[in-house]
C-alpha cells in the first residue's frame, strides 16, 4: 500500500534536496526542470511553487496542491489508494 507523506511542513531545503534527487530543482520559489524551465501543473496550467507542490507517481508528476489537479490525477492514474 502506498504511503502518503505530507510535505506541507517539510523545510524548504529538504524539499529542494528531494527535488534534486528526483531530477528537478528550485530557485527557492518555483519548481524547475533541470534546464531551468518552470514546472507547470499539467491539469490547471499553473507554475508549481515549492510551498504548494505535490510529487506523485506515474513517472514523476509534480502538481499544484488543489482539488482540481488531485481529482484529475486520480481519474487518470487511479492512484493514491491508502
Amino acid at each position: 500500500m502506498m504511503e502518503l507523506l505530507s510535505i506541507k511542513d517539510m523545510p524548504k531545503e529538504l524539499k529542494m534536496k528531494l527535488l534534486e534527487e528526483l531530477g528537478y530543482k528550485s530557485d527557492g520559489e518555483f519548481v524547475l526542470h533541470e534546464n531551468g524551465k518552470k514546472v507547470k501543473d499539467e491539469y490547471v496550467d499553473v507554475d508549481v511553487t515549492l510551498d504548494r507542490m505535490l510529487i506523485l507517481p506515474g513517472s514523476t508528476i509534480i502538481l499544484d496542491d488543489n482539488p482540481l489537479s488531485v481529482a484529475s490525477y486520480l481519474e487518470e492514474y487511479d492512484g493514491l489508494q491508502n
Partner: protein
Amino acid sequence: MAFEKEITAATAGATKGGLEYTEGLVKRLAKKFRDRDIAFIGDPKTIDLVKEQRKLESWTLLSKFIQTPELRRPAEMGFVLRKLEKEGEEERLQDLRRKIQNKYKSKGLHIAELVQGGILGRYINLLIDQSEEDSILKERIEEILNEIDRYVIFVKFDDKEKDVVEIIVNRLKVLVPKGMIIFSKGGCIPKASKIIKKVKKIAINYSFEKQVNDDSGSRYDFIIKKDEIVCEEK
C-alpha cells in the same frame, strides 16, 4: 522511525551524522518514491476533500450520467465548492473557482456552480421521477450542461420581465431544448413567478416544475420538454 519523525528530527539537528543523515534520508525517500511505495502530498485535506466527495451518493448518481470529461470534472468540483462553502474556507473556495474558470472557462464554472447550489441534482431527480431511460437521461443532462449559458437562466434584479420571457420563449422555440432551468433568489422570486406564468401560456409542449428552497431563499423552475415538440405562436 516513521518518515515524518525522521524529517522532524533531521531538520531539528537531532540526528547523528547531521548533513550525511539528511542526505541519506532524501535518498531513501527518493528510492521509495521510484518504487511507488510513497507519494509526496501537500495538505492532506486536499486529497481527503476529493475522496470524500466521491463517496457521496449524489456524486455516484451524477457521475453515472455525466461522462464527458469537460463536463464531469467541473461537476465534481461543484461538490468540493459546496463543501468548502459550508466550512467557510473562503480562500480555498476562491482559489478553486479561479482554477475551474482557467481550465474550463465560464461554462465550466457555471456547471460547478449548478452542482454547488444543488440545482443539477434536483433537475436529475426530477427527470428520474419521470422514469426516463438512462440513455435519454444522459442525453438530457449533458445537453443542459453543454449549453448551460443558454439553458440555465438566472433571473436578476435588473432584468425586465418582458425581456426574460422573450429570451426563454425564443430559446424554447428555436433551439427546442429538452430542458431549461430558471433560477431566482430573494427579491427576484416574484419576478420569476410572473415570468414563468407567461412562458407557461406559450410553451405548451413543455411541462413545468417549481421547487422552492426556503433555507436558501431560492426558487428553481424546471421546464421540461414533453414528447411533442414545437411551441404555440405568441
